[in-house]
Structures are given as structure tokens and as C-alpha cells.
């Protein structure tokens, strides 16, 4: 499942949902949570705004999830990405994979976040004490 939303998410509730949707089948769940940092490239960040390309974003995330499910044996996957204004320590993204095998869950979760970061049309703009700037690709976590 994929979701693009302005609201926050509850990682625990999402993991619980992932678990209960596949009762007893999955032995392993791996999750990645991406957070807004208060410091980037040495500068204090007071706000972070996420822009995206509605329509293309959903397609890109669906494809990432689909490829993960083709490559690895998974019982469930989830990608949630927030958009709009965020502040330091806010959740940005949540990616999770459930599997019978922990290695498969690790590989799938890492694949999904790595691919999201290079292929999904999101852009980060930081507000610093003295202005704003667009994050460059090599600076991202």
C-alpha cells in the first residue's frame, strides 16, 4: 500500500496494521522512518517543505512497491510519504516490508527507500535562519 499525505503518521499503528493483515504468516518486519533533521550541511533548519508531482508520485511509489514484491518474498509492504511544511524531528517517510525471512524484509525495505530517494518526484526546500534553499540530491540522508 502507498500513501501520500500532509498529515503525520503513526509508525506503530502502521506496523501493527501490517502485522495484523497477515496474521501468523510473516516472521519479520523491517521498517525505515525518515525524519527532518535540525541541521543540514552545517546550517540550522527551522522548516522543511516537501513539494511533489501529484499523479506521477503515486505511480512511482506503486512501481517501487511492485518491483520489491516481484524481487523478494514479501507478505506485505507499505510506503507513506508526507508532503507540505514540516519541522525538525517530524516524520517524512515510512517504508516497511514484512516477510517470512528477515533478510528478504531488510533487502526489500532498503531497496524501496533507496529507489524512492532517486526516482520518486519529491523535492525538499529548507528554511534556514537567513532564507530558504532547495536541498541538493547529494545532501539527502
Amino acid at each position, binding site marked *: 500500500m502507498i500513501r501520500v499525505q500532509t498529515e503525520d503518521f503513526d509508525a506503530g499503528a502502521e506496523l501493527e496494521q501490517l502485522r495484523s493483515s497477515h496474521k501468523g504468516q510473516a516472521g519479520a518486519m523491517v521498517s525505515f522512518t*525518515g525524519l527532518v533533521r535540525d541541521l543540514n550541511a552545517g546550517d540550522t533548519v527551522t522548516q522543511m517543505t*516537501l*513539494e*511533489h*508531482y501529484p*499523479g*506521477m508520485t503515486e*505511480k512511482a511509489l506503486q512501481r517501487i512497491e511492485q518491483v520489491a514484491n516481484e524481487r523478494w518474498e514479501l507478505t506485505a509492504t507499505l510506503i507513506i*510519504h508526507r508532503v507540505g511544511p514540516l519541522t525538525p524531528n517530524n516524520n*517524512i*517517510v515510512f517504508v516497511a516490508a514484512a516477510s517470512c525471512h528477515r533478510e528478504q524484509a531488510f533487502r526489500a525495505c532498503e531497496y524501496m*527507500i533507496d529507489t*524512492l*530517494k*532517486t*526516482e*520518486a*518526484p*519529491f*523535492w*525538499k*526546500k529548507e528554511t534556514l535562519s537567513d532564507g530558504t534553499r*532547495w*536541498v*541538493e*540530491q547529494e*545532501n*539527502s*540522508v
Partner: protein
Amino acid sequence: MLQLRYFASLRESLGIGDEQVELPDNVHDLPGLTRWLQERDPTWKSALADSRLHVAINQEIVKVDAAIRDGDEIAWFPPVTGG
């Protein structure tokens, strides 16, 4: 008609996020469209010259020589930085 979309720093440089244009007669591919836009306005001339820009046609990333058809949605944007 073509639906043109610009995102992030490119949107800010151009001052607009989207526009509709009639498909110019002699434009059949992305290089042709880019050239036409650059000749139309000096702001586009410099902004679209950035070789790091990605282009999506109908919401799929395409190569620099992709074909353009009437009705297409064409988007330019800098490297993505989400996640």
C-alpha cells in the same frame, strides 16, 4: 495542446508551475520542444539549459530524445530529494 509542468527550483526560476501551449508545427520531440521554449523566452533559455534536469512525459521519466505527441503532459524538474 501540450500540458507543461515545472517543479521545485525550476518552477521558482520560471515563476510558473504549469502552462498549456499549442503543439508547435515543427516540434516532434523533446529537443525540438525545448528549443522552441528557449527561443520563446530568455528565462526558459537559461533555465532549461541545466543538464541536471529530468523530464517526464505523461508522468514517466524519458530520455532526452523522446518523441512528443499532441495531448502530452511534459514535466521538467531537478533531481529528486525526497525520502
